[in-house]
């Protein structure tokens, strides 16, 4: 099998996400909302201490390393859009609460992301310049976060 042979089979990541509820979610087991998004989509937002929010993104729903994202109607693409909408709500709520936000993700923004998504991501996070305190760093753009918490290597 090559990676191009992979076909969309709908949401089938329960084997991983159910396990992540314990493997990752042990840190925030009492946060019902965070556990629910982790279980259904592999991402979460939670507050380890007052004034601080940690946002864990599932960049496999945003990057073209996942061949299923070549099809905009695939389950993975739909899940990616859902995550983006959720992310916007998280930042909006954090801004209203005066929280500082740390973004975590694996595949860095820009080149390896679904076409058009990076510009949307940039437009979104720059709406909240005083909220996102650490996250992806990409010096080829106007983004200038304080630390690259999205890994910088590439497949």
């Amino acid at each position: 099998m090559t990676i191009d042979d992979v076909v969309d089979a709908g949401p089938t990541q329960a084997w991983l996400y159910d396990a992540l509820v314990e493997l990752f979610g042990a840190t925030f087991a009492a946060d019902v909302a965070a556990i629910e998004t982790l279980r259904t989509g592999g991402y979460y937002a939670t507050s380890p201490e007052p004034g601080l929010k940690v946002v864990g993104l599932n960049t496999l729903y945003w990057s073209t390393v996942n061949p299923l994202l070549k099809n905009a109607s695939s389950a993975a693409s739909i899940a990616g859009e859902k995550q983006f909408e959720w992310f916007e709500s998280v930042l909006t709520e954090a801004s209203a609460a005066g929280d500082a936000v740390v973004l975590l993700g694996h595949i860095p923004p820009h080149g390896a992301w679904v076409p058009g998504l990076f510009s949307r991501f940039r437009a979104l996070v720059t709406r909240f310049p005083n909220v996102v305190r650490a996250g992806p760093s990409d010096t080829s753009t106007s983004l200038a976060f304080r630390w690259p918490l999205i890994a910088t290597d590439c497949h």
Partner: protein
Amino acid sequence: MNLSMATLFAAAAFAVAAPDAPVLAWHVTDSHLDPYYEEGIPLGAGCYCESHAACARMPAACVPRVTGGAGPFGEPQDNCATPVALWSAAVEFMASTAPGVRLVFHTGDFSEAGAAAACSSSSPAQAQVLSLVNRSMSSLRAAFPSAAVFSVVANHDTVPGDVVDAGPAQAC
């Protein structure tokens, strides 16, 4: 994400600028732990620094040598992943250097290069990935009992690699 060369994970301590005061944190990524890594495995033989005895899909020539071969703390060739000795030493270093951090971040790629093809039928690829995530997260939590440890899923932490939402027929 890049395993074309041996990927030694990176770690860094930094301060998150929270509203009231800086919060010290550790950030580690791409640990690519390989529990089958063995010191002395010949290089250039397609072994991925794993022995045939431990991982049957490796060639028969993958037998540890007394001299030469894979080093004790990793190899920059043969797509070798991270030996347990290196991961353990790194975590120990992190804990001794900045033991009082309140936050620890691991931004994914827990699994070795070959996790998408398990070493034996008794260790399916999915179970192998979950085992490596568990092993890595457990060691971080043990080293930093007072810190909140966070992580995210990455392209080597799924089966087949890079893909989410592929059907069982496509999974290894």
